[in-house]
């Protein structure tokens, strides 16, 4: 009896979740860990991990803007551009629409370190103006989206450019893998904070990863394709 009730509850929850993830155009924002979700220890831990990267990025920016203060204007505008990029609706290969993260394109354009600063600013504005994500969880979100995503994207781009020289392929994988990295790191953050009863962190990682894979993997492919199209246009103009 109890088992049947549990199963029906389970089905209900799963159906509801699937419905929301597929039909809710804000599903990509849903990858931002929400306010108050992480236990206090983990929230602080990710802040501590994120801040050194932020400081590095800030120092890189300070260096360039000291020589040419006008570049501040450019970077601020680039921040607004990145925000709008993350607010655009793009079609996903599954047919629903979603929001790109824009980290791949931003990394290739502005470099990974400035992107960590711009990305964090964008995340803060998303928290404050859209109520997506949160302040206490900003460290964790920024670490996955503004630090790991750009670094992996950049590394992939450089490596593919060097080994194959095919720029479009490099761009595609840089953008798609930057997206995927964000998704993997977020799943990891969640599984560390909420290990499964049986199977611990690994099982939990599989569960979280499995849920978000439904939106995030198609999104990564779409964003890769989109970034390639953008790059083609930028070059032809």
């Amino acid at each position, binding site marked *: 009896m109890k088992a049947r009730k549990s199963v029906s509850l*389970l089905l209900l929850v799963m159906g*509801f*979740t699937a419905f*929301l993830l597929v039909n809710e155009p*804000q599903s990509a*924002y*849903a990858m*931002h860990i*929400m*306010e*108050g*979700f992480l236990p*206090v220890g983990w929230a602080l831990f990710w802040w501590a991990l994120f801040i050194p990267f932020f400081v590095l990025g*800030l120092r890189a920016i*300070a260096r360039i*803007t000291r020589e040419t203060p*006008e570049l*501040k*204007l450019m*970077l*601020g*505008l*680039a*921040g*607004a*551009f990145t*925000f*709008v*990029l993350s*607010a*655009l*609706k*793009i*079609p996903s*290969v599954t047919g629903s629409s979603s929001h790109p993260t824009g980290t791949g394109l931003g990394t290739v354009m502005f470099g990974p370190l400035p992107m960590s600063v711009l990305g964090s*600013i*964008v995340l803060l*504005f998303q*928290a*404050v103006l*859209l*109520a997506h994500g*949160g*302040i*206490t969880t900003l460290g964790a979100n920024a670490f996955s989206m503004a630090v790991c995503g750009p670094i992996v994207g950049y590394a992939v781009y450089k490596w593919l450019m060097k080994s194959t020289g095919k720029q479009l392929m490099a761009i595609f994988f840089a953008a798609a893998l930057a997206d995927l990295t964000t998704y993997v790191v977020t799943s990891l953050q*969640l599984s560390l904070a909420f290990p*499964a*009863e*049986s*199977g611990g962190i690994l*099982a939990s990682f599989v*569960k979280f990863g*499995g*849920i*978000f894979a439904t939106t995030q993997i198609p999104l990564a492919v779409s964003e890769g394709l*989109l970034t390639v*199209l*953008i790059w083609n*246009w*930028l070059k032809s103009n």
Partner: protein
Amino acid sequence: MIKLIDTLSYSNALRPVSPLWKCGFAAALLLLSYVTHPQIQLCILLWMLIWIIGYAGIPAKYCLLLLGSSCLFYLASLPALIVEFKAWTIYISDNGVQTVAVLFCRMIACLSAMLFIILTTPISQLLQVMRKLRVPALVLELMLITYRFLFLFLDTAQDMYVAQRARGGQYGFKSKLRDTAVIVVRLFAKTMQRYRGLSHGLISRGFTDEIKPAPYEAGALPLRFRLEMGIGIVILLLGESWLRWGM
């Protein structure tokens, strides 16, 4: 959504109240939400709703809409938290259900404290508070410019999207992807154009190396609010100690 929060933050009844006080208050409640029992957390939620809907005059429907849509992440994570796999059987773990319940109370309390801040305090005041907290000037300058042009760029992108639909675009996967790429490219060109214009505009106004922000202006905090904040927090603390040590 984005314009909604922004507009409310400028037009609500608590806007003139000192932003530093509001931020301090919200920070204290965030902290409390993290360390207290669920009963206290639900009290925090109710108390915050009174501030947001009652004192700030935010329409209840917007407040609930924001609370609800923010819970999307929570809902999406539910299966992962309560479903367990063991030896090829799927079951709902009682511990999981309990975790989820506890988590919900903490999260909703934190969320209400955050909504209080973002619905009652405009970004420009948040920037001033951050300056008081010694966030580096460079970060604040970048945020200032980003915020200033965010709405302009959003409108531009929206206008181009409408124009594409008017011309029969944004129809089908390939055309949507291609048309979106065009918007991004156009927007990038405009960003660069703006950059040139803005640098001339600011240089003509005496910009040399930094954007000097307006100085912090301390708004007053009515005594009535001050008392409610103080007494309320003391009551919450007492309640928590009673739950904890059964005084």
